[in-house]
């Protein structure tokens, strides 16, 4: 009986293909938008989470605080300095690695070719803190860091650009007009969640970077890797205590630096995603409401058009509930169809986006099932009134209807 009714509904939808399609458009667009955005959103979140976990969840990042807009006028920004680094190295007992790094984007030249690459000046502990290694060659030696030697490591993108598949070790490239000799090639890190190529990099000892690239003694970032089994919040407290001392901050003054751990950064990302999902939900609700009204409208038309048919069915023995079910099923099948088309469209869009943005394609089965259920529900809710109107018709009047 139900199967019979579904077949009947499909037939009646097929009879008015164009009309049915236009009716469905609201549902299709609503569902497609939600599915596409949520799939892309969760792909992005996955990517960012992956990047963050690659950085290591035990990593803390220390930077100088930037003056806030509208903040207190008395705030004077102060860069991180070597004595901050030395203070941390000496004072932190629960850290696995403490590393200083400064970064700048400059032109890197080899022969006739030149590219803009991210150049970082750092030390040996950087590779421990960031859990990054060389795929060939070696990292800096103690003396190279101390003396600020003209040596460098290149990322996979830089190697590819200059040397193709060839081995660049021992070859000199020019970074910001000074020459440095390549001693190793870094492991590939891929694209970051923010779309940066993390392999388009050159690394050199911090001293060389400060002298030849930045021209100052500033340190941009201090990375601290907590020892395994130590809570990052404990390490964070120690860092703050030490830096307040090395930077001579008065007891009642605010920190002029900030310490963040990766879980905080991950949480910030997650809360942004939640906000976005909530807003999407609101947009989807409006669009599904519009779609539902479209379905109600077309079902009212359909009931009126088929008044005579309803009369015939009632005359030959259909109950009210048979007519009610027939039109309810028709409305439900209609909006379910819209939902399925919407899901297919949304997933295709998300697939396309994941190809072009190189993020993982992360379709969520619960969201898809929810969309299926919701579109069926829309049909039932908005199909009920028209169906009831059909079922309540008087068979004599209905048969007389022209």
């Amino acid at each position, binding site marked *: 009986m139900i199967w*019979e009714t579904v077949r009947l509904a499909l037939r009646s939808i097929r009879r008015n293909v164009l009309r049915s399609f236009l009716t469905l458009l609201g549902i299709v667009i609503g569902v497609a938008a939600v599915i596409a955005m949520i799939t892309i959103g969760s792909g992005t979140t996955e990517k960012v989470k992956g990047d963050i976990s690659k950085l290591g969840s035990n990593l803390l990042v220390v930077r100088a605080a930037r003056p806030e807009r509208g903040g207190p006028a008395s705030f004077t920004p102060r860069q991180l300095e070597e004595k901050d680094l030395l203070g941390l190295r000496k004072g932190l007992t629960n850290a696995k690695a403490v590393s200083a790094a400064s970064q700048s984007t400059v032109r890197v030249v080899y022969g006739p070719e030149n590219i803009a690459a991210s150049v970082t000046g750092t030390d040996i502990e950087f590779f421990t803190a960031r859990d990054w290694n060389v795929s060939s060659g070696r990292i800096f030696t103690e003396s190279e860091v101390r003396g600020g030697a003209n040596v460098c490591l290149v990322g996979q993108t830089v190697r590819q650009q200059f040397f193709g598949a060839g081995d660049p070790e021992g070859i000199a490239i020019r970074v910001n007009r000074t020459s440095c000799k390549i001693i190793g090639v870094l492991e590939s890190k891929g694209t970051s969640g923010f779309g940066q190529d993390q392999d388009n990099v050159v690394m050199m000892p911090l001293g060389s970077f400060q002298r030849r690239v930045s021209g100052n003694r500033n340190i941009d970032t201090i990375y601290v890797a907590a020892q395994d089994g130590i809570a990052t919040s404990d390490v964070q407290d120690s860092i703050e205590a030490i830096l307040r001392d090395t930077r001579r901050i008065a007891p009642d003054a605010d920190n002029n630096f900030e310490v963040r751990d990766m879980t905080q950064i991950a949480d910030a990302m997650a809360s942004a995603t939640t906000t976005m999902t909530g807003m999407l939900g609101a947009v989807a609700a409006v669009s599904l409401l519009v779609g539902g009204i479209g379905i109600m409208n077309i079902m009212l038309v359909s009931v009126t058009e088929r008044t005579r048919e309803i009369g*015939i069915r009632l005359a*030959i023995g259909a109950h009210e509930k048979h007519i009610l079910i027939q039109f309810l099923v028709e409305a439900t099948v209609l909006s379910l169809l819209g939902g399925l088309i919407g899901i297919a469209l949304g997933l295709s869009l998300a697939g396309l986006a994941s190809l072009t943005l190189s993020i993982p394609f992360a379709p969520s089965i619960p969201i898809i099932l929810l969309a299926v259920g919701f579109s069926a529900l829309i049909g039932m809710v908005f199909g009920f009134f028209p169906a009831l109107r059909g079922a309540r018709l008087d068979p004599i009047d209905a048969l007389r209807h022209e």
Partner: protein
Amino acid sequence: MAEKPLITFDKVRKSYGMGEAQVHALAGVDLSIRRGEFVAIMGPSGSGKSTAMNIIGCLDTPTSGRYGFMGVDAGRLDRNRRAVLRNLYIGFVFQGYNLLPRTTAVENVELPLIYRGVPHGERRKRALEALDQVGLSGRQNHTPAELSGGQQQRVAIARAIVTTPTLLVADEPTGNLDTARTHEIMELMTRLNNEIGLTIVMVTHEPDVAGYAKRTIGFLDGHIASDTLNREAA
């Protein structure tokens, strides 16, 4: 004969509207029809014949009085109970055929069986038998648009008899047909009345058509004005 009549009207009244504008379509009608009868109901428009037919077909209920169908007080039943009665015991044939458009003949004939919950295979078999009975075997996959008026009315008759009803209610069944087609349809109805003992109540305003029935009841102003047995048919 002691057999109870199939249909009894006991002071049946049917009124429309309120107060001074009230119209009495039936003004206290007494009537009884036995099983196996072939009755033609005649009368000018507004005489109450259609109202009487709707009540007989359990599509409508009297304002007052008693309508008995198969011994049941059918006038007091609710919509859905009357739908069951119609589905089980009554077949309908209309002037305008009233087939579902864009639906094949056999599917049209199957329709009443769907509401009885008859399974698909048996439904198809019985529908084909009914089409055979009205002389339309081989046309089962034609839609109404592909059939002539006479053929459409045969499909409608097949739909009415597929449930093997006790009563066939026909509302001007030949109203849209030419003389030759009218003759064919009336022959078919006579045959069904004679061969399977189907009780037929038919509304018509054509004396020729009424002549096929065994009994003619004339309505006028909500009353029965005449009730005669047709010598020719009897």
